[in-house]
């Protein structure tokens, strides 16, 4: 789960990482008396927010109100601005980059640092990016900060060491996949402050962090609702509603559609279940995404083919589905399942290639 800047900064504050004074508003009525100048920062999950006009600066109350009105509910990088973070403006002397993320190759947390902060880390030259790996069985130790400091033009070394240790504690303690500070600001008084935050929390660990977790700001409402029912459901641009079982098979389904120039409307992994109601729930989400055509791709195992067949038939009735449903049923109880479908007028294929060809034919993209 991607967190908004202000949520990440709340975490930073909890771990003792300095952040600028500030507060969040959802409407201009919530604006407070505050020391000027201030930064007005649109809370959207998007890079290059500043370039797109999502960050403005105000020298007085009048400007603050005007800009806040402009930004609230505006659309920036295709996202609607629902919240603003109003922050004391920093007197920036230097901008650095600092993050901790999980390195899948070594299975270790890795600290990434650069003296070139304030821009996307991807655009920083390789030789200016430094990585320090942390062995999770050993954890953080002070020498790591000393090494980090050898790459950065920081005078207040103690403050940096304690910030880095706190960031590692936050990374571990909050089950983060990423804790990023960009820019890490050195201000005119040589104090180090987190100018921005980008924090991603492991979805699988959200049960340990119920305090501040509500809905994933990075997901659509429908996706969030599906997540609450434990479906992995992702909305996409196309027109073919997809239900498959298993993440790998679902992804392979998407791939097969794409290779045939067919466009999925969604990704939905039914998971390992043997329950008609769950099939119906899956259909309810897919139907609400309004697909033109539906593709159900099942390889029966734990999820038995006949159960899915029954779920398809009952969903068709329950949701009054008019769209054509193309089904591929294979694996455990394949024959029973195909018979059930045939009885209610749905032809089921037993291999994926044939089913995808049928979809191509219907869509006329052969």
């Amino acid at each position, binding site marked *: 789960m991607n967190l908004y800047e202000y949520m990440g900064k709340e975490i930073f504050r909890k771990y003792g990482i300095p952040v600028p004074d500030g507060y969040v508003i959802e409407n201009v009525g919530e604006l407070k008396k505050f020391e000027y100048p201030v930064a007005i920062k649109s809370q959207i999950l998007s890079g290059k927010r500043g370039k797109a006009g999502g960050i403005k600066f105000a020298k007085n109350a009048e400007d603050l109100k005007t800009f806040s009105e402009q930004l609230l509910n505006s659309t920036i990088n295709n996202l609607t601005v629902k919240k603003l973070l109003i922050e004391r403006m920093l007197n920036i002397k230097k901008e650095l980059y600092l993050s901790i993320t999980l390195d899948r190759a070594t299975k270790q947390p890795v600290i990434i640092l650069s003296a070139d902060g304030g821009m996307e880390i991807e655009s920083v030259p390789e030789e200016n990016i430094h990585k320090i790996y942390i062995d999770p069985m050993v954890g953080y130790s002070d020498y790591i900060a000393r090494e980090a400091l050898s790459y950065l033009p920081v005078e207040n070394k103690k403050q940096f060491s304690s910030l880095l240790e706190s960031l590692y504690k936050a990374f571990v303690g909050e089950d983060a996949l990423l804790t990023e500070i960009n820019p890490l600001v050195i201000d005119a008084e040589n104090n180090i402050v987190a100018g921005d935050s980008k924090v991603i929390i492991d979805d699988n660990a959200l049960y340990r962090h119920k305090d501040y977790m509500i809905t994933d700001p990075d997901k659509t409402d429908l996706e969030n609702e599906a997540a609450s029912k434990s479906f992995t459901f992702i909305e996409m641009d196309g027109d073919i509603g997809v239900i498959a079982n298993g*993440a790998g098979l679902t992804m392979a389904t998407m791939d097969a559609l794409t290779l045939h120039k067919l466009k999925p409307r969604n990704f939905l992994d039914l998971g390992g279940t043997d329950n008609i109601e769950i099939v119906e729930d899956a259909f309810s989400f897919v139907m609400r995404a309004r697909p033109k055509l539906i593709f159900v791709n099942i390889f029966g195992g734990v999820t038995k083919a006949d159960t899915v067949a029954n779920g398809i038939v009952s969903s068709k009735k329950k949701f009054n589905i008019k769209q054509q449903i193309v089904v591929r049923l294979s694996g455990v109880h394949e024959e029973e399942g195909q018979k059930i479908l045939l009885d209610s007028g749905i032809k089921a294929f037993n291999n994926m290639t044939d089913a995808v060809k049928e979809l191509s034919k219907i869509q006329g993209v052969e």
Partner: protein
Amino acid sequence: MVIINKETRVIVQGMTGHQGTFHSGEMIKFGTNVVAGVSPGKAGTKVNGVDVYNNVIDTLPLKPDASMISVPAPFVKDAALEAMENGIKLVYILTEHVPVHDTMELYHEARRKGVFLIGPNSPGITVAGQAKIGIMPNNIFRVGDVAVASRSGTLTYEIVKAVTDAGYGESTVIGLGGDPIVGTTFSDIIRIFNDDPQTKQIVLVGEIGGNEEEKAAQYIKEHVKKPVTGYITGISAPPGKKMGHAGAIIEKGTGTAESKIKAFKDAGIKVASYPDDIPELLKK
């Protein structure tokens, strides 16, 4: 035979649960030597005719070699540590949705202790004609010489069935697990398959994310003479979008379907465009 066989003495942590009960039953039917179940507070009961104990330590007189872990995600780390600290040298985690920080700790502890860790979020391991630890359907296997390693579950069954239906048989089939960090990776398993005399050819079913496919491809290029067939899912995944627990965060530069397919091709691996194509690419 690779990793397990008929003699491997298996315990099931979480055996009294719905999944544990069902799959331990299937395992026994397959021929797996399930010696005990472990479920705290359930000592004295039996599941599928097998005694259940409260703690792993209580099963040690039965000399277990391997443990299957089928407990809810919040308890997986504890259960896996219990198995490893009690000296069990093969630990397989069925459970999905395990927090990645937990898995990271288990990964390093397993390496330290010399434990063969499979998963989490894995369908397990099956050695055709010998034993199965996990949840792969029993009836898709035929004893043969094709080894399969995959990061998927259902897709693996699909491919194994296609291989079997095409007249081939399998030696060892392993599901590595769909999470960003798993105990056993392609680069680990490829060495084992390469050294296994029963295995004559190898199928790798990879996925976007991470660089384990690339590492395995490098090893294959340098060391593996057996024919290898590959398939990569996720070619259609939009960059940066995460496809559930498929571990599909696209990483900068590496980890894309393109980079993996290229690595495979560079290593002389035949790459299938669709899962259905795999049997055709196998060596007759």
